[in-house]
């Protein structure tokens, strides 16, 4: 049976109805229409569903919507708008770090936590920081450069 919960996404509180088994990813995409977070494997293997929960990167496909009540969710929609992009978004554009783009939103969210905790990560720290994210276009080098660029700005 569906239940009504309050979900704080990108500093806006939504009242939505979810099934007790719904993932946060499903609530974001199918109920709230926030489609930046992608559904790749739906089982914690690819990272393209990564969002921040109270500032920490999690797989939204493995987090249950019911577990998120009272916590703050941040998705790429909450980072920046076309006029006024987040530094990480701008760096991905400037470094040509996007191919098909399917992995991009998840990787940017993982990078957000990395840069928040370690503003000047070396290459190893960047690789470790995005080790939970796959890019099937295998554009890792440009992605690492983009994160380096964002850290320098």
């Amino acid at each position: 049976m569906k239940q009504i919960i309050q979900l704080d996404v990108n500093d806006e509180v939504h009242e939505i109805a979810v099934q007790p088994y719904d993932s946060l990813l499903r609530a974001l995409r199918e109920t709230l229409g926030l489609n930046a977070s992608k559904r790749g494997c739906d089982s914690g293997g690819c990272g393209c569903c990564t969002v921040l929960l109270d500032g920490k990167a999690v797989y939204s496909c493995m987090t249950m919507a019911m577990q998120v009540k009272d916590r703050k969710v941040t998705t790429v929609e909450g980072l920046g708008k076309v006029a006024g992009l987040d530094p990480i978004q701008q760096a991905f554009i400037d470094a040509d770090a996007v191919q098909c783009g399917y992995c991009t939103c998840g990787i940017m969210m993982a990078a957000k936590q990395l840069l928040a905790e370690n503003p000047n990560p070396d290459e190893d720290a960047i690789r470790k920081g995005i080790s939970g994210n796959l890019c099937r276009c295998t554009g890792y080098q440009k992605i690492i450069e983009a994160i380096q660029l964002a850290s320098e700005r």
Partner: protein
Amino acid sequence: MALTSVEAFHSPADKASVVQLLQKHEDNALIVAGGTFLHGLASRGLLTGIEVLIDIQNSGLDNITINTDNVVIGATTRFAQLETSQEIAQEAWLGAVKDAIAYPPIQIMNSATVGGSIASSCPFFDLPTSFLALNGAAQAHGPDGSRDIPLEEFFSGLFENSLAPAEFVTAIKLPQPPANSASAFIKLETNANDLAIVNAAVALTLDAEKKCRQARVFVGGGMGETPVRASAAENLLTGAVVDEDSIAGAGEAAKSGVDPISDHRASAEYRAAMAKVLVEKALRKALARVD
């Protein structure tokens, strides 16, 4: 993969309420916390008939307590909390715990819990192998109160454990070993987000002459239905000076003592060969930590 059989989600505020829910819903209830292995269990057909989820993350079980004779890690302690604990970072005897959490990506570090790594009773997990080497016990709470179950008894089979009905894991207890002890863990994996092909954890206690007073050696990751104790390797080390000769002997003994599975990750033969390599490397790593 949604668990569409689930009809209700509870988030009890204390242990007693958890037990009440477990008593009421019996086999139809499942304890959850980080949720990172729900899919893993469901895809193996282990969650059919689950109608009630009991989230214990708000049940007050996320503390790390350092006592004089042991360390108690609450069940819903996240891997990321372990990583920031000073004791776990500094104590040589807890090296195997520190090593095991160096592998997962941040998304798992932020979600997965210590209790879940135990209660899932998955033979491919990393922390259980370390906790076994450290002679850990699961603290279980149920209708009759709390009890400690040594992990070697706790893991009773493939995805099976010896929890009684309406019992659940509330903490893991690691007894403080004598001075001159250290431990280490090593995992062989195909990528950062995969289960172990093979893993190994060792705990050593040396005496004043640098001879081995006590050794615990475990190998996991497809070695059997649970991580396996390499008793022959332990016997060989006990009383010996830990050097390249005894390390090689222990590695060989660990290899002959296992009967691994073959699956899409690796053949049994490869796993056995790697069990030797990993035990040797883990022993060198632990030895370097004893001061």
